[in-house]
């Protein structure tokens, strides 16, 4: 280092000289920096050269002052920097050298002061380092204790033991770490303990969900079957209603025909009644004529009797007349008898006509009743037809509702299938979770949860496959109706 300082100083000296002397010397000086040996040689050469050159150049004129400067240089070379350089007040080149030398002296003095300060500070730093190293040894022991303790705790934690706690007394600066570790472990223990309970609940809940999903799937199948039966019954009802509507329409036609026939029959009855009345009139006229005939027969009989009386009075002379009278009487009696029979027949006919008139009148009344009843039937049949129409409309709505129910049921079946699979997956996950959680020891003794046998794991895939097949079959069957 001193060598390098000397080199620097000489370099600075050369630089200061170079202000007043040759640029080539400066270049030589710079070139002399290449190697340590070359540097020393060049420095010596340079110093000699400068001295020689100064001695040669300045000579005798400034020999005394140069000697002062040489003395100053010697002083400087001796390492004495606090002695001022003489002749700095001069204005000539030697003055400039003196001033440069004095500047060099200041520089060197400052450099030594800096070096001294640096050494002092290096010493302080070393002392500090040693003190720190002393303290570090204590801290290292404390740290090793902390690390070992925490490592042991973390190792137990790594093996799932959550009951691990740090009981040793740490240095004050590590107490927070110990506290935090214990608190963290307590939190973890509590959390895992809660998680154990939650896992158990979750596992039972997942099992319940699985069973519920299975029940739901079964009920959905039953619902689909019921829906199919409902659709079939609805088809039958629709057919029945259609037949009812057709029957009602046909009945309306028949009833209309019956009403027309009844109305025509009423006209026939009226004509029959009139004809019966005419028959009655004719019978009365016939009775009158028969009465005339009967009267004529009666009178003829009387005349014949008188003739017979006269013939009897005439004795033998009236014998032939008596025979004629007798014949006339026989004719009159036959006429009277015939008239009597006709009268009886006419009477009977009249009675029968009267009965016929009564019956025809009753028939007319019955036909009137029939007409009114047929009108009622017409209204009823019309109501039946409209009711059948309304039923058809209602059945259409019911049909659409059934279709919607069908779609919803299919969607439900799909969702039920998904939820069944999800519930079984959830159950498996719960089992896995329980197994994982069970690896932690949250209190003294055995691990909290024994890893349960994954009974649902082997069950789920077959269940899912069969359910999927069942869903496909159900959809096929639903498409049929």
């Amino acid at each position, binding site marked *: 280092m001193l060598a390098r300082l000397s080199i620097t100083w000489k370099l600075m000296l050369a630089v200061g000289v170079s202000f007043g002397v040759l640029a080539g010397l400066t270049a030589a000086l710079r070139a002399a920096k290449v190697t340590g040996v070359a540097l020393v040689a060049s420095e010596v050469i340079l110093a000699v050269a400068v001295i020689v050159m100064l001695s040669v150049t300045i000579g005798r004129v400034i020999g005394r002052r140069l000697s002062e400067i040489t003395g100053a240089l010697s002083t400087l070379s001796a390492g004495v920097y606090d002695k001022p350089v003489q002749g700095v007040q001069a204005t000539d080149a030697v003055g400039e050298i003196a001033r440069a030398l004095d500047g060099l002296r200041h520089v060197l003095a400052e450099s030594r002061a800096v070096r001294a300060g640096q050494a002092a500070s290096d010493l302080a730093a070393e002392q500090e380092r040693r003190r720190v190293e002393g303290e570090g040894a204590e801290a290292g022991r404390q740290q090793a204790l902390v690390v070992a303790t925490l490592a042991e705790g973390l190792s137990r934690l790594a093996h799932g033991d959550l009951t691990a706690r740090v009981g040793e007394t740490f240095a004050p600066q590590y107490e927070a770490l110990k506290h935090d570790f214990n608190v963290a472990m307590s939190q973890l223990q509590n959390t895992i303990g809660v998680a154990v309970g939650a896992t158990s609940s979750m596992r039972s809940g997942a099992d319940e969900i699985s069973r519920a999903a299975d029940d739901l799937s079964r009920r959905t199948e039953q619902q689909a079957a019921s829906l199919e039966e409902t659709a079939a019954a609805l088809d039958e009802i629709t057919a029945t209603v259609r037949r009812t509507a057709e029957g009602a329409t046909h009945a309306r036609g028949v009833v209309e025909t019956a009403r027309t026939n009844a109305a025509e029959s009423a006209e026939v009855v009226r004509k029959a009644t009139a004809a019966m009345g005419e028959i009655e009139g004719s019978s009365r006229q016939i009775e009158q004529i028969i009465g005339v005939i009967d*009267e004529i027969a*009666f*009178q003829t*009989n*009387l005349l014949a*009797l*008188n003739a*017979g*009386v006269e013939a*009897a*009075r005439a004795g033998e002379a009236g014998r032939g007349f*008596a025979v004629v009278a*007798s014949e006339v*009487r026989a004719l009159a009696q036959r006429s009277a008898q015939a008239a009597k029979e006709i009268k009886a027949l006419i009477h009977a006919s009249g009675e029968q006509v009267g009965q016929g008139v009564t019956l025809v009148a009753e028939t007319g009344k019955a036909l009137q009743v029939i007409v009114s009843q047929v009108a009622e039937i017409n209204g009823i049949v019309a109501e039946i037809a409209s009711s059948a129409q309304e039923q058809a409309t209602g059945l259409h709505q019911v049909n659409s509702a059934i279709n919607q129910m069908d779609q919803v049921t299919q969607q439900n079946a799909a969702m039920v299938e998904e939820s069944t699979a999800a519930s079984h997956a959830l159950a498996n996950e719960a089992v896995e979770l329980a197994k994982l959680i069970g690896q932690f020891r949250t209190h003294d003794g055995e691990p909290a949860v024994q890893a349960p046998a994954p009974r649902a794991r082997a069950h789920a895939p077959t269940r899912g496959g069969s359910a999927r097949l069942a869903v496909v079959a159900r959809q096929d069957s639903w498409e049929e109706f």
Partner: protein
Amino acid sequence: MDISTSRIPLPGAELISVRIGDQAYAIDIMAVREIRGWTAATPLPHAPPHVLGMMNLRGAIQPVIDLGARLGLGMAEPGPSSVVVVAQIGDAQMGLVVDAVSDILTVTEGLIQPPPSVGSIESTTYVAGVMTTDTGIVSLLSLDHILPAEVQATAVAAAA
């Protein structure tokens, strides 16, 4: 003319059979003057019940007798079919109302029998004999006592 001959006609004689109610009676045709239809009789004041009244026979006023009533068979109800037999009884003529004139019978031997004795003079007074026919028993009436003698006389006087 004795009673027997006058009351029983000889065979070959003729009888008029009449009907009163359901019963048939016979009258000697020689006593019959005429047979007429019923016409309403003009009532005769204070006449006996069997005298229905008077009638005009071609200008002659003659009494009309209800023969059934006179024979004790009950009052007749004359109608259009009733017949009036105008009989010559003695010197008097009168109309006998009957329900009908049935036939003219010819008397044969043994046809007419005496009426049975029933201990009643009235019966034998009015019935001269009985005969049987196909339609039943026919009583032969004796018209002499249809009207009492005084009445007959009155009728004869009236007719004169």
